[in-house]
């Protein structure tokens, strides 16, 4: 009985869907638009978050010591810094290690390698790389190092260059969330309104049919389900269309949000988010479809 009801009403829902012509196109396109807007918002905030995480992983404070400072003293500094509760890790990089790293980093540039070998003494400075538990604490850490007893031995503290990037990501994420929620609510309402009207037109076209159904004793569910399925089909279609449209949009839009330097990294991470986004679209699309059709049919089922 349940199976029969579902198969019969599903069939009726499909029929409504493809017989409605331009109405179907209208409903699917407005739902697609609403879904695209949430997807773009999702994509933007995911990529901004990915970018932020990537940058945060790279961030550290490098404290360079003057070349005459003894290794012992540097180790003492490291030990003291590690006691700060804001510090996650502090890594000592000796002059030799710094040279090796430099050589590997520039392995493909023989000119530079030659130049560095030409200098008899190792020109690089020993350093301590400090990572904070929370990126916002770099300021405090840097300040306390500047004011510590070691300030005479320190050649330079290097961290400023990342601050701009972090700030930029943080503001982007905040803006995306604010405008995103607003746009999403707005377009969902528009989508519900239009789908509601499309389904109401369908119901209107099926007036006699519904009247007969009621007269011969069709249950309310039997009358309601074809229209609910119609809404579901609109939602599924819209989800498929919008995921197809989303690929090129992501390609075009991400560079503006995260800066072209990070696009490569983010997009490689992105593929696995697509399934998630598609599922979200499907869910929202189907929900919008169901809500609209239930609203539209409600009036016709009152006794």
């Amino acid at each position, binding site marked *: 009985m349940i199976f029969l009801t579902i198969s019969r009403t599903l069939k009726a829902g499909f029929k409504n869907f493809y017989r409605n012509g331009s109405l179907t196109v209208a409903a699917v396109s407005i739902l697609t638009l609403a879904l695209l807007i949430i997807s773009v918002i999702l994509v933007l905030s995911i990529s901004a978050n990915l970018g932020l995480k990537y940058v945060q992983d790279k961030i550290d404070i490098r404290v360079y010591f003057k070349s005459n400072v003894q290794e012992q003293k540097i180790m003492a500094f490291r030990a003291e810094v590690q006691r700060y509760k804001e510090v996650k890790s502090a890594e000592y990089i000796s002059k030799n290690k710094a040279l090796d790293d430099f050589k590997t980093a520039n392995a493909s540039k023989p000119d530079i390698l030659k130049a560095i070998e030409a200098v008899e003494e190792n020109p690089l400075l020993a350093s301590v790389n400090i990572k904070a538990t929370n990126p916002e604490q770099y300021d405090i850490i840097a300040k306390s190092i500047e004011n510590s007893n070691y300030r005479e031995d320190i050649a330079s503290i290097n961290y400023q260059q990342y601050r701009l990037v972090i700030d930029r990501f943080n503001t982007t994420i905040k803006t995306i969330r604010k405008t995103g929620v607003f746009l999403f609510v707005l377009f969902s309402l528009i989508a519900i309104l239009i789908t509601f009207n499309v389904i109401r037109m369908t119901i209107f076209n099926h007036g006699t049919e519904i*009247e007969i159904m009621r007269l*011969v004793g069709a*249950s309310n569910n039997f009358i309601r389900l074809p229209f609910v399925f119609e809404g579901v089909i609109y939602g599924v279609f819209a989800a498929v269309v919008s995921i197809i449209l989303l690929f090129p949009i992501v390609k075009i839009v991400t560079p503006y949000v995260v800066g072209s330097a990070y696009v490569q990294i983010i997009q490689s991470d992105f593929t696995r988010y697509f399934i998630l986004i598609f599922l979200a679209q499907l869910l929202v699309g189907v929900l919008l479809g169901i809500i609209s059709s239930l609203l539209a049919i409600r009036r016709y089922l009152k006794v």
Partner: protein
Amino acid sequence: MIEFKSVKKVYKVGVTSTVALDNVSFSIDQKEFVSFVGHSGAGKSTILKLIYAEEKPTSGEVMFNGEDITHIKPKGLPLHRRRIGTVFQDFKLLQKKTVYENVAFALEVSGYPNKEIQKSVPQILEIVGLSNKADNYPHEISGGEKQRVAIARALVHRPALIIADEPTGNLDPISAWGIIQLLIKINKLGTTVILATHDKEVVNNIKRRVVTLDQGRIIRDHSKGRYAI
């Protein structure tokens, strides 16, 4: 089978209210053939609507098989409707479905299995004499035939009661008489028939119980009645 106990029905449109039925009481037994007659607005259709629970009485009670349907819940309505077959003046056929599909539709929406539909529909079309028109669309058949399709649809789920509201209103006298004979045949097969009409010829030829209504009141109720207003 059906009992009306002091039923009053008032329709309210804005500030004006119209009394459609005023303190109406009667009862109809199983397998009866009852004709309700009267002018337009006498209350015939309202009585029928109260029976298939399309309307609720303003006061009083409507009983169906000993069950009070005055306050029937929306959930119980479909099951109630499946005990009744309805036929109307305007046929209410689906233009995009064939004769066969129109009749089958009534069973489909009530959740009957396909096998039973394939068995019942041809049988019913045979009874109403439309076996040869099964694949025609409503616009391809005559008015009388359309009404036969409607009767077939009303009958197909084997209801205990057939309600016919002016079924001959749109038909020529010969087709009309054909429909009435069909209803009499159905009645003889054991189904209760309630007919609402203002067709004098029809009523006088049936020679069954006639209830005459005027301005919402029963003014006559004769077991072998005639149309007389």
